[in-house]
């Protein structure tokens, strides 16, 4: 709800439904004028389940691999932001993921290959076949220079990690176990007799204890010296699927198929004795489906599974400062934009893993007052279903503002299509012979007049292509600037076509002059990665949102921060604003109101009015609309610049189509859960 200090008469806003679900919407008063909102729920986005999780202590980063082969890197110190990802591949069925010395990431999968990921070039360095069949488990030696791989044929292979690659060293057969004791072997699937119990995970402690978790719901402690069972804990009715031990080896975490995560700790038997034993201390139920991967950082338990959430649970006894940072974090929605919009033709392009969908929004001729649901005179239309060839996932996609061009990129190819509209029909024509340097693009953007295409490649360079009728011409390539790659590149272009901004390196956000094809300036570096970037229409102010919820405004012509930006940096953002846990993924502007900035994250959208006073920590941030019988004086007193609405959530995309129309793409969580694999049956009394 908003409160407006400026307009005495709050004009209403009508709500327009653009899906066949017929959901009712509560009233929304924007207070800046009339807005019709297209509420879109037909984006059938279902993320892939999480398969493996690996935590790196030195850099506090988390590597997550999903069932479609995607590997994502989360920076836990940068507010749990997903800074990098490697697109998936159909043949890659990753079963194990681990970090080695020097920030090197390795994965092993059922196709028998060990893959090393290049975190600077954001591509796959190489894939080496281990020649042992499908790889089930992988572990790194404590010193970090050796890699152990457990294969289907029963052998454990040892690889030496050299600066460039890995080199095969030895092969351990099933009998030779002595050398294996020195390493921590993660997981091996072994079929044990008796009711076909599968051991899903094994952990090896340095004092010789072996902990195994199996499909009968048991956590068993074995003594490796004598080979006997020491303790047996039956903790679940379903499989216990994952186990992770902390570095100090005094606690470990297991995940079950019912979605429960159990924490085991080594505690002394009585308060002053030195004898310790393993005790199950805390259960956590944050998942609905199988928890297939767990990790243990020094201060938190991390779990992920088939229900696609990534849950990070800080342990209260390990956290030093008990502030908001110690709260539960659940990452469900993507941290990047998967939707692009053509404002002129009211088209939305949805990006899936292997195809793109083009939809035209519905329209209405009805009008109404604030809070009405307007009936559609024309339904939303599914115009195009574009499937990609090959096993690779789509990395990024974009549609031009005029709606005549669609571009998308996979790891090995770049596709550009020209669309022709005749009355109600649409025809597609592919532009062939795209240059090879455009592949593996991280971000694609069209200019406002749809004559130029900007592509940020994973090598760090920026390409500018001029689009002609049915063909293209390569204009210029900006070479990568100095600085290491910190996150995936984001692009923004000014509506007048003069400026291009690119983020992603440690040097800061670079601004290029397109007319003269040279670097114009660089915004000073900030220690948190950029989550959204946009350039305002007439003022050419660059608005940058970072993962710690800071928003900066930088004037490109003046090459300095704007006055408003300095003011808000001096005062600081409201504490509730800084405690939001999803990043801002899109920023846009009103064509006629230069003082307004529209931005949104997964659970709210906000219009920042720069002409109004800023809130301090004492004012109410989410101030609802005061009742109309209150005087205007009170309304003016409580008004502040941040007008936040939480009506539409979870939001995947929100943008201004024209002066009077907004589009909001929502994805209710229930719709995602409805398409997940079957969970374990839970018997409840009375059902």
């Amino acid at each position: 709800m908003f409160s407006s200090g400026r307009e005495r008469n709050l004009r209403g806003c009508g709500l327009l439904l653009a899906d066949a679900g017929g959901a009712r919407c509560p009233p929304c008063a924007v207070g800046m004028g009339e807005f019709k909102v297209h509420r879109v729920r037909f984006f059938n986005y279902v993320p892939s389940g999480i398969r493996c999780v690996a935590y790196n202590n030195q850099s506090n980063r988390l590597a997550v691999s999903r069932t479609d082969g995607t590997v994502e890197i989360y920076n836990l110190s940068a507010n749990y932001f997903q800074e990098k990802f490697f697109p998936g591949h159909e043949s890659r069925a990753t079963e194990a993921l681990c970090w080695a010395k020097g920030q090197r990431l390795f994965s092993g999968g059922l196709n028998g290959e060990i893959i090393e990921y290049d975190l600077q070039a954001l591509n796959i360095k190489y894939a080496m076949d281990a020649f042992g069949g499908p790889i089930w488990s992988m572990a790194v030696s404590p010193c970090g220079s050796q890699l152990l791989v457990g294969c289907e044929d029963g052998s454990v292979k040892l690889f030496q990690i050299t600066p460039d690659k890995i080199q095969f060293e030895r092969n351990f057969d099933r009998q030779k176990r002595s050398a294996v004791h020195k390493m921590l072997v993660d997981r091996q699937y072994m079929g044990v007799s008796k009711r076909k119990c599968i051991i899903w995970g094994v952990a090896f402690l340095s004092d010789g204890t072996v902990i195994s978790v199996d499909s009968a719901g048991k956590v068993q402690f074995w003594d490796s010296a004598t080979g006997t069972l020491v303790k047996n804990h039956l903790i679940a009715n379903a499989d216990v699927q994952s186990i992770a031990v902390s570095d100090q080896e005094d606690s470990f975490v297991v995940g079950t198929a019912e979605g429960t995560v159990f924490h085991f700790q080594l505690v002394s038997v009585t308060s002053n004795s030195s004898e310790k034993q393993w005790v199950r201390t805390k259960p956590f139920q944050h998942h609905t489906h199988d928890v297939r991967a767990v990790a243990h950082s020094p201060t938190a338990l991390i779990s992920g599974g088939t229900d696609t959430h990534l849950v990070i649970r800080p342990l209260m006894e390990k956290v030093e400062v008990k502030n908001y940072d110690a709260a539960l974090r659940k990452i469900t929605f993507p941290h990047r934009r998967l939707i692009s919009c053509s404002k002129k033709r009211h088209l939305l392009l949805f990006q899936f893993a292997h195809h793109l969908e083009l939809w035209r929004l519905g329209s209405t001729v009805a009008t109404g007052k604030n809070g009405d649901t307007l009936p559609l005179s024309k339904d939303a239309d599914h115009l195009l279903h574009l499937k990609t060839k090959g096993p690779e996932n789509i990395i990024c996609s974009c549609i031009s503002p005029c709606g005549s061009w669609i571009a998308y990129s996979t790891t090995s190819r770049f596709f550009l299509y020209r669309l022709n509209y005749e009355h109600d029909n649409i025809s597609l024509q592919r532009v062939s012979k795209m240059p090879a340097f455009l592949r593996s693009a991280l971000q694609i953007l069209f200019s406002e007049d749809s004559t130029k295409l900007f592509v940020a490649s994973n090598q760090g360079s920026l390409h500018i292509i001029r689009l002609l009728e049915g063909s293209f011409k390569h204009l210029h390539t900006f070479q990568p600037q100095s600085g290491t790659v910190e996150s995936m590149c984001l692009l923004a272009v000014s509506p007048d076509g003069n400026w291009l901004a690119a983020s992603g390196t440690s040097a800061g956000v670079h601004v290029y002059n397109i007319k003269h094809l040279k670097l114009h300036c660089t915004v000073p570096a900030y220690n948190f990665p950029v989550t959204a970037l946009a350039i305002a229409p007439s003022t050419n102010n660059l608005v940058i949102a970072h993962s710690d919820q800071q928003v900066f405004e930088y004037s490109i012509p003046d090459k300095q921060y704007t006055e408003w930006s300095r003011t808000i940096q001096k005062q600081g953002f409201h504490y509730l604003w800084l405690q939001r846990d999803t990043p801002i993924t899109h920023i846009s502007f009103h064509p006629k109101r230069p003082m307004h900035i529209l931005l949104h994250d997964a659970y709210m959208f906000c219009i920042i009015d720069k002409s109004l006073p800023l809130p301090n920590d004492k004012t109410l941030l989410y101030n609802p609309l005061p009742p109309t019988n209150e005087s205007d004086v009170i309304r003016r007193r409580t008004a502040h610049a941040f007008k936040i609405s939480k009506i539409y959530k979870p939001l995947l995309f929100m943008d201004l189509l024209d002066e009077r129309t907004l589009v909001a793409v929502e994805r209710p969580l229930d719709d995602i859960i409805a398409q997940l694999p079957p969970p374990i049956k839970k018997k409840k009394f009375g059902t």
Partner: protein
Amino acid sequence: MVQLRPRASRVPPSAMVDEGQPASEEEEEAEHGLLLGQPSSGAAAEPLEEDDEEGDDEFDDEAPEELTFASAQAEAREEERRVRESVRRDKTLLKEKRKRREELFIEQKKRKLLPDNILEKLTAAGQTNIKKSSGKLKEANLQKENEDCDKGSDSKKAKVQKVQSVGQNKSYLALRLKDQDLRDSRQQAAKAFIQNSLYGPGTNRTTVNKFLSLENKRLPVKKAAAQFLNNAWGTQKKQNAKRYKRDLFPS
């Protein structure tokens, strides 16, 4: 008086059958012997038919023509020979056709193969395992079955892989199709194992609908299931209805 035609130029009895005249027994006996040799006498037969009506009676009185065993045997042998000839001709024709097809296939296969010099280099490479990935050729053409079986078996034992560039063009390697199939089948088997152990028989799984509806069942006021409506029901009927409506009321 009408001059009768001499009997020697009598037409063959087969021509008279078409006119509907009853074929006498003598004529039928002679048919068999005369059929083989006289296809063209039909045209000449017509004008003489009326004359022959009168001659039928005389034919009935005569004895049937004598066919010696030798002549019949000769005719039979003649027929057999002709049949054999035709069969042999067919066989040779077929053989030729097959031969030409074989050659065509070999030609096509040769065209699909890589040029000879590259093949020589590959076979000469020896113990090392060479993988292929080309930027120029399409992926389908890349994978070609390696004729050298030794290399295949060695590649399985070789632990250290050396990527050797073939020729001056370092952009491609060679893969064995059989290895890829084996790898795929093992990967499929592994995936099937996981799927079976997690979701196969013996696991206690339920549908998402039932899972989400558990809460609804335990509320003091019971609610319907989470996915009570089946939106996928009757999609074809709904589409037809929409099309029908569109045709009736074009807007």
